[in-house]
């Protein structure tokens, strides 16, 4: 639409900024906006379009999760610790969007340091789910999720360490993809659990996600775990028919703990895939139940190490009154971090402390391999795996906030793919009691193009991804 000059990037950006001014005070999806910066990028994009140098995302306003450093933008990671931090450089993901002339529309709210499944741990307050403002949008990419669902951006970025793209995509009714670990550079993305963190697109449709992947993915030598692979076009397989596609249904994803209404929607989605020519295969991922215990050893262990950098010396919060260096560290960290972040730092420090390392950390790494091997076996029998992305629809704000274990179980279907390093996505598949339900599609390593094809073909015969919440027109 921008290329055909029906609307300019400046007009489009202004439209979104207007919608944000109208709805954000209620939704709280954005925590930093800079109209002048966004409009300057839009103006530059219009010049590129006029010069015939446009790429698919040139001039498109994108919301950036506040975990990505963007030069001269506040970058807080949802924490008091970084409330005054202004990034002095760009994350790789930001550089990539800048390079194609996309517009940074603002920074989105998130669970503090991406630790949470409801966006309620943010220092900047919770985010409302546009489908029902008494409910949470999911997390940790809750601001990006609400922004996409409420059409406060064309698309957004997220990060997914245990489900933080896919669970909010399910709860807010849009398409979100967590790529294979190593496909998108982590440079400039504030670290939570480095062996699991992966950035990905959050957008209305699989096609939009594919276009975003074309910009976000690629080798970056500044990330030591970035994979040096040939550049690929993620849109290349979108139009392929699904005849003969083998869809694996893991019995563990349909067992106790799955909400009946969600299960019904997923069953209907599977039936739609049968009509598209898919063949259903029963599979088993026997160690699924262990993924949460393993994750809550490995992720806090890595987090306790990553977050040790926040000491109040060079940046971040420093306490107002202190006696010596130790007192300064302990007070600055106690004041700068919220309750959930502190819990995870304590768990991580505990499992890594002398005498417990073998029983917890090493054990968790061993079971991580068993979980990854489950998937290797499963992919001998099928091309993609399907199931729910989250065990329930969006829950009410405050409902799980005092019960960390109940909150952690939100990620029961998503965490195992992070541990294995596999790509996963959530695709809108219908509604249960008026709330969106996401179908999860898990692919083999580097099979994002096929997953996007599988999602796109479904979106050609359904319109769940086009539904909009009421009251945000």
């Amino acid at each position, binding site marked *: 639409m921008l290329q055909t000059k029906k609307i300019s990037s400046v007009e489009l950006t202004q439209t979104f900024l207007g919608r944000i001014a109208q709805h954000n005070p209620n939704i709280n999806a954005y925590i930093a906006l800079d109209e002048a910066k966004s409009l300057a990028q839009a103006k530059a994009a219009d010049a590129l379009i006029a010069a015939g140098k446009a790429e698919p995302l040139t001039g498109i306003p994108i919301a950036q999760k506040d975990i990505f450093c963007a030069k001269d933008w506040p970058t807080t990671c949802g924490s008091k610790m970084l409330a005054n931090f202004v990034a002095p450089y760009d994350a790789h993901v930001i550089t990539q969007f800048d390079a194609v002339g996309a517009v940074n529309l603002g920074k989105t709210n998130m669970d503090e340091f991406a630790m949470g499944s409801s966006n309620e741990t943010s220092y900047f307050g919770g985010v409302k789910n546009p489908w029902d403002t008494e409910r949470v949008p999911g997390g940790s990419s809750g601001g990006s999720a609400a922004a996409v669902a409420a059409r406060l951006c064309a698309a957004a970025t997220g990060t997914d360490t245990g489900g933080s793209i896919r669970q909010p995509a399910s709860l807010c009714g849009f398409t979100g993809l967590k790529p294979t670990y190593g496909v998108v550079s982590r440079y400039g993305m504030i670290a939570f659990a480095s062996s699991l963190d992966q950035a990905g697109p959050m957008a209305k449709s699989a096609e939009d996600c594919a276009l975003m992947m074309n910009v976000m993915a690629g080798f970056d030598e500044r990330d030591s775990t970035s994979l040096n692979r040939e550049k690929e076009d993620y849109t290349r397989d979108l139009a392929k028919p699904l005849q003969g596609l083998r869809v694996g249904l893991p019995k563990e994803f349909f067992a106790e703990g799955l909400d009946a209404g969600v299960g019904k929607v997923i069953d209907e989605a599977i039936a739609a895939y049968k009509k598209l020519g898919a063949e259903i295969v029963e599979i088993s991922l026997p160690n699924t139940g262990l993924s949460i215990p393993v994750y809550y050893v490995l992720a806090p262990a890595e987090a306790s190490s990553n977050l040790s950098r926040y000491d109040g010396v060079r940046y971040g919060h420093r306490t107002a009154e202190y006696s010596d260096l130790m007192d300064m560290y302990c007070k600055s960290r106690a004041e700068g971090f919220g309750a959930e972040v502190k819990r995870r730092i304590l768990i991580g420090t505990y499992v890594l402390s002398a005498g417990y390392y073998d029983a917890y950390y090493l*054990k968790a790494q061993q079971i991580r391999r068993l979980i990854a091997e489950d998937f290797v076996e499963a992919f001998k029998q099928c091309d993609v795996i399907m199931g729910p992305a989250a065990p329930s629809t969006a829950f009410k704000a405050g409902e799980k906030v005092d019960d960390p274990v109940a909150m952690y179980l939100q990620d029961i279907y998503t965490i195992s793919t992070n541990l294995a*390093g596999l790509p996963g996505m959530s695709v809108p598949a219908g509604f249960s009691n008026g709330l969106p339900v996401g179908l999860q599609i898990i692919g083999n390593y580097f099979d994002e193009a096929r997953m996007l094809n599988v999602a796109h073909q479904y979106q050609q015969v359904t319109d769940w991804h086009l539904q909009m919440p009421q009251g945000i027109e």
Partner: protein
Amino acid sequence: MALSIEDIKKVAHLARLEISDADASATLAKLSGILGLIEQMQAVDTTGIVPMSHSQDLSQRLRDDIVTKTNQREAFQKNAPMLGNGSAELAVAEGLYLVPKVIE
């Protein structure tokens, strides 16, 4: 295994987090719940299984030993915290960061 208040305080000290007695007991209940969840791992026999630290089992790349970063001291020091203890100045002086005296 059961955690005690002393364990919480010891771990909080290792993590450089100040914790009050009231917070330590509230934290104890929540952490015990999380450790209960983690204990499920102990039922699995993992004899002989190689620990997995990275999903691709790759080794680290090497790069040429050349300078790749430029000095951005001034830009970085703009993010310095306030000095505190009654001062509203940034905790920097002459291109260095200010912390309490650590050497007698």
